[in-house]
C-alpha cells in the first residue's frame, strides 16, 4: 500500500514537473490566451502543485479518479472499458507463452548440445530479440496483404485492424469467430515473444535440475524418462517459473502498447499512449495506478504461491 502511494506520488510529481501545458491541446486553434487561462482555471491547473495533489489524492481515496481532460468522461469508465480488452489479450498470450515456452525449454535441456537444442536456441533468441511492433508489421505483410496477393483462400487472410469487422453486426458463434480471427495475429505475436523468453529461462533451469543427484537416483532406480521429467524435474522448475509468470503479466500488459497501437485495438495500452500524447493527466494517472497495482499484486501472488509449490516443503 505504501509502495502504491509512493508510485502514485512520484508519477504525479513527474507529470506536473514536465514542461508543456495541457490547455494548449484543448483550446481551439483560434482561442486567445484568456480562453486558455479560463480552461486552466476550470481544470484546477492554475493552482499550485500541492493543492492539485491534495485535491486529486483525496478524490482518489474516495474512489473518484477524476474526469479525462480530453473527453470529459470519468477516468474510471475509460479504464473499465479498455482494461478488459488488454487483460484478455495479455492473459491469453501469457497462458500460451507458458504452454509453448516451457515444453520447448524442457526439450532443449533434454537434448542439450545437440542439433535440436542449437536450432531452437537460435530461433528462440532471434524471436526474443525481435521488437513486437516489427513482428506485427511483418506478420501483417504476410497474412493480410501477402495472403491476398498470393491468391491464398480468403480464410487465410487475417484482419489487421480492430477487434471486430466494422459495420457488421454478428451474433453468437459468428461474432465469436470474428473476434478470434481479429485476435489471432496480436496474440500470436505477444505469445511468440513471451514464449521465446520463457523457453530461454526454462532451458537453463531444467538443465540445472537435470544435473542434480535425485534425478540420477530416479533414473538409476528405473523410473521411465517421461516420469522423471513430469514428476521430478517439473516439480523443481515450477517455483521459479511461477514467479516468472507473475512477473511477466505486467510486462505483457505494457508490451501490448505496441501491439495494440499497430493493430488499432481499443485496449488500455492504446488508451494510455493516447492520454500521454495529449497530456490527459487524469487518464495517465489512472492508468499508472492500474499498472502499478497489477505489478504489486502479481509480486504478492508470486510470493504467496512460492512456498506452496516448493517440493522440498513436503519432506520437511
Amino acid at each position, binding site marked *: 500500500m505504501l509502495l502504491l502511494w509512493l508510485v502514485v506520488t*512520484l508519477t504525479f510529481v513527474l507529470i506536473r514537473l514536465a514542461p508543456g501545458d495541457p490547455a494548449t491541446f484543448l483550446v481551439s486553434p483560434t482561442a486567445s490566451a484568456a480562453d486558455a487561462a479560463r480552461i486552466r482555471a476550470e481544470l484546477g491547473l492554475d493552482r499550485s502543485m500541492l493543492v492539485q495533489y491534495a485535491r486529486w489524492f483525496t478524490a482518489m481515496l474516495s474512489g473518484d479518479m477524476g474526469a479525462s481532460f480530453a473527453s470529459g468522461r470519468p477516468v474510471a469508465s475509460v479504464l473499465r472499458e479498455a482494461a478488459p480488452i488488454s487483460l484478455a489479450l495479455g492473459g491469453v498470450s501469457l497462458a500460451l507463452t507458458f504452454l509453448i515456452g516451457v515444453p520447448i525449454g524442457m526439450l532443449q535441456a533434454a537434448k542439450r548440445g545437440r542439433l535440436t537444442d542449437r536450432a531452437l536456441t537460435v530461433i528462440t533468441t532471434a524471436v526474443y530479440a525481435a521488437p513486437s511492433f516489427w513482428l506485427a508489421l511483418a506478420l501483417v505483410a504476410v497474412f493480410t496483404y501477402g495472403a491476398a496477393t498470393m491468391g491464398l483462400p480468403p480464410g487465410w487472410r487475417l484482419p489487421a485492424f480492430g477487434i471486430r469487422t466494422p459495420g457488421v453486426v454478428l451474433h453468437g458463434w459468428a461474432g465469436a469467430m470474428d473476434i478470434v480471427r481479429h485476435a489471432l495475429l496480436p496474440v500470436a505475436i505477444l505469445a511468440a515473444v513471451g514464449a521465446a523468453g520463457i523457453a530461454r529461462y526454462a532451458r537453463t533451469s531444467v538443465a540445472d535440475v537435470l544435473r542434480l543427484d535425485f534425478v540420477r537416483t530416479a533414473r538409476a532406480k528405473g523410473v521411465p524418462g517421461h516420469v522423471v521429467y513430469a514428476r521430478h524435474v517439473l516439480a523443481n522448475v515450477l517455483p521459479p517459473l511461477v514467479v516468472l509468470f507473475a512477473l511477466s503479466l505486467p510486462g505483457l500488459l505494457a508490451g501490448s502498447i505496441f501491439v495494440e497501437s499497430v493493430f488499432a485495438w481499443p485496449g488500455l495500452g492504446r488508451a494510455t499512449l493516447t492520454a500521454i500524447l495529449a497530456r490527459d493527466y487524469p487518464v495517465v494517472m489512472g492508468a499508472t495506478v492500474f499498472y502499478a497495482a497489477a505489478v504489486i499484486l502479481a509480486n504478492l501472488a508470486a510470493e504467496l504461491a512460492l512456498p506452496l509449490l516448493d517440493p522440498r516443503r513436503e519432506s520437511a
Partner: protein
Amino acid sequence: MGLLIALALACIVVPLVARGDPLAIGDVLSLRLLPPFARDAEGHLHLLGTDRFGRDLFVRMMLAGRVSLAVGVTGSVIAATLGTWAGAVAAWRGGWVDRLLMALADALLSVPRLVLLLVCAALWQPGLATVVVVLVATGWMGVARMIRAEILGVSSQPYVHAATALGVRPWRVLWRHALPNALGPAIVATTLGVGNAILLESGLSFLGLGIQPPRPSWGNMIAGGRDLIVTAPWVAIAPGIALILTVLAATLIGDSLRDRLAGERGALKRDIAERV
C-alpha cells in the same frame, strides 16, 4: 561478439564512404522506393533499395545503427553505473539512506518500464539526450537491487572483516574489496540490458517519441515504412533485421558471460519482465 563488432564497424565506415548525403532528398520521383539490389537511372547500386524520398536505405540503416548502438550502449552503461553506485551506497551506509534509495527503486520497479519510459519521453522534448536520460532514469533500479544484495552477502566474508580489522577505511574496503566481488551479476545484467535498451529506444522512436527524423534510427525507419508495408515492404523489414541481429548479438554475449560468471538468474528474469 564478432557479429556485434562487425555491425558497429559497418555502421561507422559505411556512411563515411557512401556516395551522397543519406539525409539529402534528391530527385524523389525517379529514385523513390527502388527495390533491393536495384540500380537507379545513373547506374548506382542501392543494396537494399531506397525509401519514399529516394534515400539509400542501406546507408541510412548504417547511419541509424550508429545512433541506436550509441544510445543503447551509453544508456545501459550509465544506468548500470548509477545502479551500482546506488546499490553500493545503500548497502554500505544502511539506515535511512538504504531505506530511501530502495523505496525509490521499488516504486520505480512497480511501474512497467515501458509505461514509465513513455510518460517521461512524451512529456519532455523528444530527442537523443532525452532518450538516454530516460533510459538511465528507468534502468538503474534492477542493478541497484542486485548490487545491494551482493554487497550485503559479501560484507560478512572474512576478508572484508580482515580489511576492516587492519584499519582500512570503510569506503576503501567497499571500493577495493567488497565491490569487485559483487560486480559479476551486474555485468551480466548490463550486457543483457544493452539489447533491451536498444529495443526500448527503437520502440520509443517507432511511436515518434524517441529519435526524431530526419536523424535516422532503426525505430523511426520502421515507423517510416509502416504504411508502405504493402507496396515496399523492404523499407520497414530491413531496419528490423538489423535491429534483431544487434540485439541477438548483445543477448548472446550476455548469455556467455552469465555462463562464465556462474549463473545469475535474476538478470534474465528482470530482462524478460521488461522486454518490449
